[in-house]
């Protein structure tokens, strides 16, 4: 799976929880998931659990602490798969 496929899957999952749907369409690697996409911090856990299912990986709480942007999420998944 290449990075563009990973990114597309991540954005597909985040779009379910994002309050700012428009920002999801134009998201870049630097887009902050909480602040720019307006994902509630409690919902970020759901995003990461959905990513676990989608990519068949396991994420620890400490790993998740480093996920602030779309780029962080791509890096985490790339390192795990």
């Amino acid at each position, binding site marked *: 799976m290449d990075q563009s496929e990973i990114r597309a899957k991540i954005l597909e999952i985040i779009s379910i929880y994002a309050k700012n749907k428009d920002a999801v369409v134009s998201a870049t690697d630097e887009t902050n998931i909480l602040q720019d996409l307006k994902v509630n911090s*409690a919902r970020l856990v759901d995003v990461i659990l959905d990513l676990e299912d989608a990519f068949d990986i396991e994420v620890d709480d400490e790993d998740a602490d480093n996920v602030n942007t779309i780029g962080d999420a791509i890096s985490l998944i790339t390192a795990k798969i």
Partner: protein
Amino acid sequence: MSLPAATRFNLFVQREVGRLLSVVWIPASAFILSVIMRYRVRDVRELRRRFRALVRATDKPILICPNHLTMADSALVTWALGGSWWYLFHYRWVPWNLPEYHNFASVWLSRMAAWVTKCIPIVRGGERAQVANVLKRIQHVVSRGETAIIFAESGRSRTGRIQMETIAHGMGRIVNSIPDCHALCVYLRGDRQDRWSTIPKRGDSFYVDFEVFRPESDNSGMRRSRDFAMQIADRLVQLEEKYFARQRATA
């Protein structure tokens, strides 16, 4: 889970200064709650007897997880469970708190008061690394035999009932990260508390009930923490249903 030595030292200083000043701030807090605000806790003797029996009998780490309706909840839960004088001789059971930084940080006096009263400020929804740093401090103090309050919901309930969609993952994470950590689920509600508010109405009478248990999960990683958080929330919902069933029965 280990903290830098400087952070551990800062927590030690904060706790010990708070302990020294506790002869002032604990009775003063109880005075504000019971005399100025005229709050009452129903069946308070039995409640405190149960709580004191629990802490005497256990050597397990305990995280206190209450529901959240007002900004006075942590003070009320602490006062309801232990009273005031008891805490002077059992200071480790005065729980650490995680107040939202922006609620009190603008005034230096409230910052100082929060520091003395075992508060560690947190910016809800802030940078994840900063939030994780605060949670690590709570893990540290709870794993060393103290206790802390983490509200089950990530904000005061807008509906007046426990909101499962806002369950705070952090409490599950802390319980997961400390071996054999138990959750003390506390349900607190004023008789005149329909929905969320800043503080309860003056003269309100509070129903308080609690239950302690060890969450279980076959999962690992973040999913295990999530399972723990949801189990704690489920227990609180059961306590809430018990409250409303009791209200209906006495209506």
